[in-house]
């Protein structure tokens, strides 16, 4: 039996870990939405692809670099590059021809891309689960009955660093400024000489690379990967992005962490069979009172 304080501390930790996965994926949703108003349904599958790329690269590297943190970091970098390029290519081949089409057509194309990624990986892996075996030492910090493993701490640190870097990138660099400008007014940006297509490509690259980080992290943390892992994660991350205010970068981070904490709280209070009902109900109630999400801006939009 745990004391009430221990339960709360442990569930906070659980929620934060899960929330950082949501946040990393939600960032990709939010960035893409902000810039071309597309709900990129393929994003969850990019997360899944990232996990598999990481898995295979890790398998190759394990012999030379070792199967501890070194190998994981290299696998993560490789997955970031591959998925970033993949995201860029998807945008180039599937989405770009449809930028001026009705937005629902773009949404359906995204579902189509999701089907392609999902089924390709399914065929390659023969529909089987893969198990990620690393030799990162177990153990961690212990407070009474509560244990926080080193892996958890490293994952939180990676998430925090990536978010700080991204905030800096969006906030101060010329590309970040261009991104924000495009999300406000695309035609004017074109007139101002901003290479809009290039910036959109960059957005896809960054969003997909972040999803790949989450993918490799989930390999390390959960140890198993399968071709439909992106499905539920995608839906949840999408929810997180909306909670935070879709299109807003800090909002995606906040929304992700909040959703993770909500789910942990829901599991503790109501049982895991009701936790999703709890999370979605809160989402709907929140949207009724604050339709733009926590940090979203009110804007006039057209379908």
């Amino acid at each position: 039996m745990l004391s009430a304080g221990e339960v709360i501390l442990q569930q906070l930790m659980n929620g934060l870990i899960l929330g950082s996965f949501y946040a990393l994926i939600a960032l990709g949703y939010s960035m893409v939405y902000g810039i071309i108003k597309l709900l990129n349904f393929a994003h969850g599958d990019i997360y899944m692809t990232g996990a598999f790329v990481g898995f295979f690269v890790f398998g190759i590297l394990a012999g030379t670099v070792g199967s501890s943190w070194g190998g994981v970091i290299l696998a993560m970098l490789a997955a970031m590059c591959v998925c970033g390029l993949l995201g860029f290519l998807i945008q180039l081949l599937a989405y770009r021809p449809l930028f001026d089409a009705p937005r629902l057509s773009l949404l359906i194309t995204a579902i189509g891309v999701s089907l392609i990624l999902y089924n390709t990986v399914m065929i390659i892996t023969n529909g089987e689960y893969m198990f990620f075996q690393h030799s990162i030492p177990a153990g961690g910090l212990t407070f009474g009955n509560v244990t926080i493993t080193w892996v958890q701490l490293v994952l939180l640190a990676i998430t925090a660093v990536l978010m700080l870097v991204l905030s800096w990138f969006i906030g101060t660099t010329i590309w970040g400024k261009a991104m924000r400008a495009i999300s406000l007014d695309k035609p004017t940006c074109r007139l101002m000489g901003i290479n809009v297509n290039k910036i959109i490509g960059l957005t896809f690259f960054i969003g997909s690379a972040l999803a790949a980080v989450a993918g490799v992290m989930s390999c390390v943390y959960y140890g198993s990967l399968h071709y439909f892992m992106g499905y539920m994660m995608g839906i949840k991350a999408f929810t997180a992005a909306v909670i935070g205010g879709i299109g807003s970068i800090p909002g995606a981070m906040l929304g992700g962490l909040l959703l993770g904490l909500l789910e942990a709280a829901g599991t503790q209070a109501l049982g895991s069979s009701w936790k999703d009902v709890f999370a979605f109900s809160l989402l709907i109630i929140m949207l009724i009172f604050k339709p733009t999400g926590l940090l979203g801006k009110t804007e006039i939009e057209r379908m």
Partner: protein
Amino acid sequence: MEHNENIKLQNIEVTANTAAAEEAAVEEPTVIQRKGIAGAWDNFVEGMYRLVETTKGKILVFGILLIAVGTMPLWASSYVLQVAWNAMFYMLLAIGCNIIVGYCGMCDLGYAAKFAVGAYTSAILVKTFGWNFWLTLPVVIIFAIIAACIMGGPVVRLRSDYLAIVTLGFGEIVRIVARNLEITGSASGISGIPRPYLFGVQLTKIWMWFFVFIILVIIFVIASNRLKNSRFGRALEYIREDEDAAEAMGVDVARYKLWAFIMGTVFGALAGAFYAMQMAAISPNSFQFLQSANILLAVVLGGMGKVPGVMAGAAFFAIFPEVFRDIGEYRMLIFGIALVIVMIFRPQGLWPERRR
């Protein structure tokens, strides 16, 4: 733009035969003559429009279609009938979803929840309480209206993408609640539902359901078309084209959206009730998010707003994987590729609403 909207408002207020003027008033990108397969398809669709515009053409096309479909049980195997039934079932859902998505322009990612309401209401009343199936249909409609008001209440005031997530959220909530409750049979769902009787015959064979669904499709098409050409339908179209302008001109956007939502839900729930009876078993797994995405996909693929279009989309969606059944796991991959290609070359859908 302002000028166009004025014309449109008048259209709503004036008589029915202004549809042409109204369409002319809608500002649309001009159609460019394209080459290759895309161009050929454009021409084919255009030709079909011309054909069905004349009464003779209408009778010809629908007559051939009806005879071909109506005589199917004589020459087709039960497998083909099952696939055809499946296609018609998706048509019903797509026609219902089209009211929300196509007529009104709301993005609905939780349509499966709506047909779950009908399927469960009917299945519980028939299986647990021993009702006659046909008597459950009014109850299904009442429950659908209640569910639509609960789901639609928060939805109608939201803009498109928030609307998408709220409908998605409700879709998941309905599925999980169905899975957790005893009365809905929890995760196993409800199985062994007795088949209903029609004219004293128990509907156990697939060819019987085939005819029942043909009649349903005809009823749905007629109802949906009448809805579209009514004052209500034109108001919805106005909302779809420009919500702000509609509101500014005095259209009660929230009320019309809620009604569109209710209509779509009633259509979906009725289709769901018949689905439960044909399958004789339903479970929460039949109402996953993927199902909602599929229905939306059929609507957009076929051409939003156009009833024959969404029917074509639904048929494409149901039949395509069956045609490629023998290649096993590659079929959904090919389906995905086909989807992307169709969308790139025909973003407005296979058979969209005609805009001049």
